[in-house]
């Protein structure tokens, strides 16, 4: 692990929550030059520290139907490669959103999105369970997303402070 400089850390913390932040404004807020911000971000993109910029979407508020599942996968690690090969076989499917190696009762945690329960079910039964090194899958459907990436969905509380206080 590289020791991350203070400025890198502060930039990362800022853009982790707001990737659209304006570099000029961020420079003012952090008390550094705008060019330093732009260069540091570009360096971190090249170094693979910043891997992408995403948007958090509440699909429930659109007419688009989506179902998200968490799938616990138990599998046999392969000699010399551990879980890497099987993880790769899984993450190559575009409908798979993320794959994590997990400690504890199972090995891989796979998240995926589909349009319907059926679509996910058929992925699990046809594509996942049939893999040779996969021993079992347990599929959990997400019913409601309360908080994701540090952002609370739904109810927001306004500022209830008194407007003027000494």
């Amino acid at each position, binding site marked *: 692990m590289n020791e991350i400089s203070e400025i890198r850390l*502060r930039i990362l913390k800022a853009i982790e929550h707001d990737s659209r932040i304006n570099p000029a404004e961020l420079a*003012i*807020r*952090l*008390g550094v030059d705008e060019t330093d911000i732009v260069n540091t971000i570009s360096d971190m993109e090249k170094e693979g520290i910043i891997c992408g910029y995403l948007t958090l979407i509440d699909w429930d508020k659109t007419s688009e139907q989506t179902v998200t599942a968490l799938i616990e996968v138990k599998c046999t690690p392969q000699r010399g490669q551990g879980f890497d090969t099987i993880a790769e076989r899984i993450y190559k499917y575009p409908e798979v959103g993320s794959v994590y190696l997990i400690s504890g009762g199972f090995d891989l945690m796979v998240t995926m999105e589909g349009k319907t329960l059926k679509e996910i079910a058929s992925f699990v039964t046809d594509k996942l369970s049939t893999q040779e090194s996969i021993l079992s899958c347990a599929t959990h459907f997400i019913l409601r997303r309360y908080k994701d990436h540090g952002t609370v969905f739904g109810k927001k509380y306004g500022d209830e*402070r008194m*407007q*003027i*206080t*000494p």
Partner: protein
Amino acid sequence: MRDPIAERVRDMKPSGIRKFFDIVSEMKDAISLGVGEPDFDTPWHIRDEGIYSLEKGRTFYTSNSGLMELRTEITKFLRRHYNLSYDPAHETLVTVGGSEAIDIGLRTLLEKGDEVIIPEPSYVSYVPCTIMAGGVPVIVELKAENEFRLQREELERAITPKSRVLILPYPNNPTGAIMERKDLEKLTELIIRHDLIVLTDEIYSALSYKEPHVSIASLPGMKERTILINGFSKAFAMTGWRLGYACGPENIITQMTKIHQYCIMCAPTTSQYAAVEALKHGDSDVEEMRNAYNERRRFLMHEFRRMGLSCFEPYGAFYVFPSIREFGMTSDEFATELLKRKKVAVVPGTAFGNCGEGFLRISYAYSIENLKVALGRLEEFITELRSGS
């Protein structure tokens, strides 16, 4: 019927912010930059500890001085951050906010007619508490050109044979001024020579953006003549929990505890349990909040410079104190017009002392998004003023 109100209460001036509070609360879409408390919620782990204490039925009184565990954590915190060493058993008192500590500190120290040196602009309660305690406030009018730091000469001029207490309100509300070590060191000889007791209100100590805050109590010869006041409101965003503390020499704290015991009994128990958690595991929360305030502070200063609004750079608390002298209006007029025309509420500097005339207190205990909208309106307003409309 004779007038039932005591003279010293009748003569007490109502708070200067009351008028604005009344106008703002009538307005629907006003944006306020007038709040003197954090916009963050108390960190959840701290709130959770308070809730847990209620679930466990810890709804009793604590000892008058406060939970021993809390006092111990307070002294550890002061040692860790400010290199101060207090005995939790005899030199520490948990109070209902810093406000109570100011009140009972002054009541403990003052004989009738004793003078209390109060630098202004500063928090609204020092003068009334001094008067209620029988003391005589002696105001030192701080200067913008000194970044509102108390100068040795200013202090020296205020000292008379009756001087008893010096109130040291840094980091400062409303100016955001700080006193660095070098500034404090210039005062100590004078304080000792004139045998003053210092009541140092360090409630904003965690919000210092230059060097880490230095407490005057940590300077040589000062601990024995200093009442240190601090609390949880600003550092941990715990204003509503009403919890603060005073540390000082045993003889003073013992006497303060007597008043506290008869007036208050003890600080709220739920708050005390939550505060133990804050001190044990809250340092990183404080740092995160400090970083957020600091970003906003830099942003505001940048915007003021861009608008050509004159403001010294404040390094403490969460206030900026820009000058509006160029517009030829009083602080009150400016704030009232700004509120009426642009629906932005700020507090006139005069709410914190006459020498606040010509200044506004603007709080940055608001999100950047909020500040942007409010500053946009402020800019429109001053552009209109400059073009004479």
